[in-house]
C-alpha cells in the first residue's frame, strides 16, 4: 500500500511538472494535439499507480516523451505554417454577413444546435446580427457583430478617457507581490512609504490593489481572523 502511495505522489509531481512544461496554453483551450496528449497522459499515469508490476520509470518515460514531443511539435508549428495547418487545422468562416455557410457547417460536422449554442453563449440570439463567425482550430466560435449591433464605445460617444491599466494585487495576505509592483512601475520603497503615510502595517493588509495611476485600494485583515 505504501508503495502505491509514494508512486502516486511521484507521478502527481511528474504530471504537474509536465503540464507546467507544456505551458499555460495547455490549461485553457486545447488544440487537437494537446487534447491527445492530455488524454494519453491521464491514462498512462494511472497504469503504474494501480499496477506495481510496472516500473515507475515505464510510466514516467511515455509521459515525458509525449510532453517533449508536444513541445517540439509546437516549436515546429510556430516556424512552419503548413505543418501548423496539418497539426491544428484551419479556421473556418461559418457565418458571413448574417448568412450561414451550410457547406462549411457540413464540412465541420457542426449542427445548427451547436452553432446556436455558441451564439447564445456570446449573447447573440439572432444570426442576422452576426457579420462574421469563425470556427477556431480549438473548436470555439469567434463572433464579430454587425457595426449597428455592436455596443457603443466611448470613442463613438466622443467621451475622453484616460489609458489606465487595470488594478493589480500588490499585497496579498501580508505578502508583497513583486510582479504587481513591477507592473505598476513602483518598488518596495514606494510601497513602504505609502503604507506609512496611510498608517497601515504590511502584515495587517489582506489585499492591496494598485493601478498604473498609483491609485490604491486596501482591504485590512479582519481582527478575529488574525488572532485565530
Amino acid at each position, binding site marked *: 500500500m505504501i508503495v502505491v502511495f509514494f508512486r502516486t505522489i511521484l507521478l502527481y509531481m511528474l504530471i504537474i511538472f509536465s503540464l507546467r*512544461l507544456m505551458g499555460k496554453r495547455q490549461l485553457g483551450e486545447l488544440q487537437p494535439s494537446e487534447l491527445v496528449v492530455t488524454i494519453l497522459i491521464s491514462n498512462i499515469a494511472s497504469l503504474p499507480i494501480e499496477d506495481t508490476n510496472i516500473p515507475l520509470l515505464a510510466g514516467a*518515460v511515455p509521459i*515525458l*516523451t509525449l510532453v*517533449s*514531443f508536444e513541445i*517540439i511539435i509546437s516549436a515546429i508549428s510556430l516556424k512552419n505554417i503548413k505543418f501548423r495547418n496539418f497539426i491544428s487545422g484551419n479556421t473556418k468562416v461559418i457565418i458571413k454577413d448574417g448568412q450561414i455557410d451550410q457547406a462549411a457547417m457540413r464540412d465541420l460536422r457542426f449542427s445548427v444546435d451547436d452553432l446556436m449554442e455558441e451564439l447564445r453563449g456570446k449573447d447573440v440570439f439572432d444570426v442576422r446580427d452576426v457579420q462574421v463567425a469563425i470556427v477556431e482550430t480549438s473548436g470555439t466560435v469567434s463572433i464579430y457583430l454587425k457595426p449597428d449591433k455592436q455596443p457603443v464605445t466611448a470613442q463613438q460617444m466622443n467621451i475622453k478617457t484616460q489609458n489606465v491599466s487595470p488594478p493589480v494585487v500588490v499585497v496579498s495576505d501580508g505578502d508583497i507581490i513583486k510582479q504587481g509592483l513591477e507592473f505598476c512601475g513602483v518598488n518596495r520603497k514606494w510601497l513602504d512609504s505609502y503604507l506609512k503615510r496611510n498608517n497601515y502595517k504590511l502584515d495587517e493588509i489582506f489585499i492591496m490593489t494598485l493601478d498604473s495611476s498609483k491609485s490604491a485600494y486596501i482591504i485590512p485583515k479582519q481582527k478575529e481572523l488574525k488572532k485565530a
Partner: protein
Amino acid sequence: MKRLVIALGIIGAIAAIAIISLLMLWSTCNAITEQAESICKSLDEKNIDNANRQSQQLEDYWEEHRGVLSFFFRRYQISEISISITMVRGLLQYNDTALAGAFCQQISHRINEFWKGELPLPGSIL
C-alpha cells in the same frame, strides 16, 4: 526556446536511459545464459558438486542484478526468472538433476525471451 531545450534534453535523457538499460540487460542476459549453460554441462557430466556451486553463483549474480533491472523492466518477467533460478538450486539440493537440468534450460529460454522482447524490433514495437 527554454521549453524546447528542456524537451530536447528530456528526449536525450530518455534515449540515454533506454540504451543504458538495454546494455545492462544484454550483459546480464549473456552472463545468466552462460552460467545456466555451464550448470547444464556440469549436470550432463554428473558433476553435482560443481553444478551446486555454479547454481549458488548464478543465484548470487542474479540477486545482485535483478534490483537494478526492476527499475527499467516489468517485474513479472524478472520474478519468473528468479523463481526458475531458485528452483534449480532447490532441486540440486534434493539431487533431482533431471528436473534441475530442465529448469536450467528454462532460465536460458526465459532470459532470451526477455532480451528479445526488449529489443526495439518491429515484432516488439508493433
